[in-house]
């Protein structure tokens, strides 16, 4: 068994990588779902929701087929990348749904005002849409990250349980429970909880930084 520290560092690396993969895609999809009146809309919704509908182990088998030698992405199974990918896919629907709720709350009037002030759609996205949806986007990221940290079923199937290489916190905990090593399991559970709380603290700090947004109407009845 690898040391607790190795496990924690690996878990963080895997979860961060998962977020790097999931967040841009999630934002793009949420944006399309909220702002575009596509005909393929429902299909996107369905595909995005799938990973939520299936037990992670099944997703793991699906990924194993994709990443195996016979699949298009030969040789990626049983690597840290596979673990990140599994986490990203499992976290994606949660992130997308939360992003959708956050973006739906943004009044398009502000986006139009920004455009009439000379901002092109990209600028509007960066200066208006994202800041206005900030709280919700942060919440979605939090959910996604914490979910990625706790991902087990898909990961162990597609990435295996290789200490030091793919054994993340949940896998480590599971292994120790199965082995009857309760003390070690409790230690890792405590570490998981600590990590989640640390994430929450960072989230709250970022929220406070994001200052004004989300409080838009709290203060007065003037305007």
């Amino acid at each position: 068994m690898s040391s607790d520290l190795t496990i924690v560092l690996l878990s963080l690396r895997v979860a961060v990588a998962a977020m790097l993969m999931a967040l841009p895609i999630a934002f793009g999809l949420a944006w399309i779902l909220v702002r575009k009146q596509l005909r393929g809309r429902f299909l996107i919704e369905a595909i995005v929701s799938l990973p939520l509908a299936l037990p992670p182990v099944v997703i793991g088998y699906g990924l194993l087929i994709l990443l195996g030698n016979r699949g298009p992405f030969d040789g990626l199974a049983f690597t840290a990348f596979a673990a990140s990918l599994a986490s990203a896919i499992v976290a994606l629907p949660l992130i997308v749904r939360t992003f959708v709720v956050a973006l739906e709350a943004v009044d398009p009037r502000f986006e139009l005002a920004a455009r009439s002030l000379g901002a092109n759609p990209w600028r509007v996205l960066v200066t208006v849409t994202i800041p206005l949806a900030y709280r919700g986007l942060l919440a979605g990221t939090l959910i996604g990250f914490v979910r990625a940290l706790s991902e087990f079923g898909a990961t162990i199937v597609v990435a295996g349980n290789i200490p030091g290489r793919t054994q993340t916190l949940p896998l480590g905990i599971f292994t120790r429970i199965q082995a009857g090593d309760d003390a070690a399991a409790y230690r890792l559970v405590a570490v998981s909880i600590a990590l989640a709380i640390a994430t929450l603290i960072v989230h709250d700090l970022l929220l406070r930084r994001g200052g004004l947004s989300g409080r838009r109407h709290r203060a007065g009845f003037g305007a």
Partner: protein
Amino acid sequence: GCGNGGGDDAILVLAAASLTDTLLEAGVVFEEDSGVEVEFSFGGSNALARQVELGAPSDAVIFAGAAPMDRLEASDQVLAGSRLELLRNRLVVIGDGGAAQLSDLSDLASLGGRIAIADPELAPAGLYAKQAFEAAGSWEGVESRVIPTLDVRAAVGAVDTGSAAFGLVYGTDAAVASGVEVLYVIPEGLHDPIIYPAAIIDREGGSEVARRFIGFLAGDAGGVVFERHGFVPVSR
């Protein structure tokens, strides 16, 4: 009986997931015989043992290896003297279609490619596989290429998809998987005997129905069902 729900005399048996089909079938036969309903909860053997330890309701257990049963015995969960050996299984090396037959387990050390085994920490099958490598003197040679998987099925899946070149799995699992080929049957002497033990859980003296059911499984009627599914009943 003291399982829960399902009627007063129904019993609950926690059994290794690899026995699912077999036991459900045997359960029906037993029910027709005795008029008593048997319910099963299937899972990984180690997990089942943990569940019993933590207070899961159950009348009997059937595991895919001795270790979890040893643990339950050690913690006095099992009715003394009720343990018996029900079935045997074999460990085999599988590979994807193209690989050549092996003549010895140590051949794997010289061949490249990843080797999927159930995680020795998680499943008895993994333990047997590790013992076999160690006995063949090739554990050091293959350790870095070993992929510990969730369970035997996941090891089969890894080979089936080509993510691993070889796998060490039970003969019964290899038999039902279509895309893999048995390359080598590991001699039984290389590892602890692969025995499926059964026992009665020690709650209020143990369930009489459970006793009868285990007896049924160990008898001829049960043996027929097991054989139909590729197992070797110990009683034969």
